[in-house]
């Protein structure tokens, strides 16, 4: 088996250590004998249906983000990403990437930056910097079912994800939108309603850096499984891996911050 990982705007949206997510997806696939190809997709590049089996979209600096927002619209890539996500292609978008895939971003001044409209959410600039470690409890029932093992009682907080957030944009979910989880410690989407992230089909948007996937390997595996299922059109059971170190790091972070 083989999967293609589409790293969106890796040259512009890569400053928060989110590359760890790419490393984690790649290694966890390779350790199971699944071949991985990483495709860098940036300004001016073309993208069509079926090119990519998992999308990853990281966070960037403000200036880069404007450039990327423009390109997503002009090149038509935003539309393709949305259609692919609707088809079930998994996606992980962090921080800036998450914001750009919502309905719009409202800066302090000037007009709204239109988003891709994948996540039923919108973001407003704020003067609060929401920085710090974050622990959330996974909300989505669908996602929980896929992760029975995560219920394991040895975890300090069952169904938890742990990371680091650093944003001033406040994201609000629209009616009917599903958050990724509920904030146990930290700020989350907006620091007001305890929600964090958004999950739509198999697309996950979140403010969690850290990097997110190394310490939350179940989420990494869920994305890989979905990618293979969509690509090969059958149910896939991933071979279990020894996650002792991953779980230790998860536990250490949770116990330090919650």
């Amino acid at each position: 088996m083989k999967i293609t990982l589409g790293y969106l705007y890796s040259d512009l949206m890569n400053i928060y250590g989110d590359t760890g997510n790419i490393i984690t997806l790649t290694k966890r696939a390779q350790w199971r004998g699944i071949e991985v190809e990483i495709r860098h997709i940036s300004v001016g590049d073309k993208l069509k249906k079926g090119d990519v089996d998992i999308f990853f979209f990281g966070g960037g600096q403000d200036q880069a983000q404007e450039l990327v927002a423009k390109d997503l619209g002009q090149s038509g890539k935003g539309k393709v990403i949305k259609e692919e996500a609707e088809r079930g292609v998994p996606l992980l978008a962090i921080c800036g990437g998450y914001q750009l895939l919502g309905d719009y971003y409202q800066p302090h001044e000037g007009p709204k930056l239109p988003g891709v409209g994948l996540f039923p959410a919108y973001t407003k600039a704020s003067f609060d910097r929401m920085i710090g470690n974050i622990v959330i409890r996974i909300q989505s029932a669908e996602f929980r079912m896929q992760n029975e093992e995560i219920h394991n009682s040895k975890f300090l907080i069952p169904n938890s994800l742990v990371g680091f957030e650093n944003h001033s944009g406040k994201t609000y979910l629209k009616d009917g939108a599903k958050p990724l989880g509920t904030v146990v410690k930290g700020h989350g989407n907006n620091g007001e309603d305890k929600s964090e992230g958004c999950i739509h089909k198999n697309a996950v948007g979140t403010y969690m850096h850290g990097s997110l996937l190394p310490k939350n390997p179940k989420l990494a595996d869920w994305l890989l499984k979905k990618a293979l299922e969509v690509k090969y059109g059958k149910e896939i059971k991933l071979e279990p891996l020894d996650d002792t170190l991953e779980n230790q790091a998860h536990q250490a972070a949770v116990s330090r911050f919650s």
Partner: protein
Amino acid sequence: MNLKKTAAITLGKTIHKTTQVLKIGGGSAAPGYYALKLYPNLVAELGRQIPKTVVITGTNGKTTTSRMLAQFAGAQGIKVIRNETGSNLERGIASSLIHNSKFIIHNSVDLAIWELDEAAFNIVVPKINPDIIVFLNVFRDQLDRYGEVDTIVKKWGKTLSQVNPSVKIFLNGDDENLLELQKSFKGEVKTFGVTDYKIAGEKRAQLRKKNDLDLEATNIQPQGLDITKFKVKNQNFTLPLPGTYHIYDFLAAFAVASELGVSLGNIKSGLESFSPAFGRVEKLNLKDNKEGYIFLIKNPTGATQVIRTIQDQIKPEDRLLLALNDNLADGTDVSWIWDTNFEDLGFRNIDLRIICSGIRAEDLALRLKYAGFDPKTLETEKDLQVAFHASVKGLEGRLFILPTYTALLKLQSILAKSGIKQYYWKEEK
């Protein structure tokens, strides 16, 4: 002299004495911190009494550069004051001024060398009116503290636009982000750089043509862990440090020293007696004639440079001790380790002992697992003291220690307690 100022200085001096006697953490920032609370104008008033002031900022290399510059100036007989222990905020400068203050005037000091971090630069520069400013580089550092690179450069530019055009500015001409600063400054800017060299993570200046630099190092010859040879202005130099990135620190110190009228001969003799700053490629003499090296790591660019420097040097009998803390001074966000190319460590296939320590030891071990190391060879010991003693026990080769900032401070006290070295604030300055 007003009463409040006198009181502030006295308070600072008292705290300094107390921390020295009690051996609590070097006491480099505390005197200044409290004195500034009492008298906020302290740095401006005392700082401006010094005839010449140099400010050095940038993400990496500030301490090494100012230490080198102090050495060069010292060789020329120039009396120097600086914030020695890497406390590069306003309070660090205040501490240093208080410590040297005779309450009236710094008539015994000719030159102040202040290293300032990315944020403190904007606060302190307008207060002290420096004569010379050095920009070493700008990389992604602690995003939780300094913000994004674009933001840092923008703020520097704003500060520079209000600086007197007679100020001399020296900047790393290989760093494209820094070249942007020329637009904000009305006076003259001089550049330094290295031929045919690329620092991972640095936005390399694309448009720079050869001979564009005012000061350039050529013929770089790295030689093991102890020295690097190169040429500047057709003169041979031997830097007692490994890693090409340190040549930039040298060039900055060289440029400023020349500007201050230090002779080439004195620069050379200053360089000969130069010893690395605390934790910056610091060499240790461990028990049984074994050697250790400390390389401070604090951001992805610096850590990747350290890894590139040591990767060819590591032998199977050597050991590696990494220590990752997430205190404020380290940056509370540890995600930078995922942007550090631990994959570049070329010894994955040799059976090396690697010990991961510090508050976030597990994160380090996990990073190394995903960089291709066998989890079975990775030891995790959060307690740095235990980890250090385990690392030296039965050591046959050398010990490479890579700590983050607060882990380095802890390590210094462990080393002092073990009789391996003195407390760093007792070191010769």
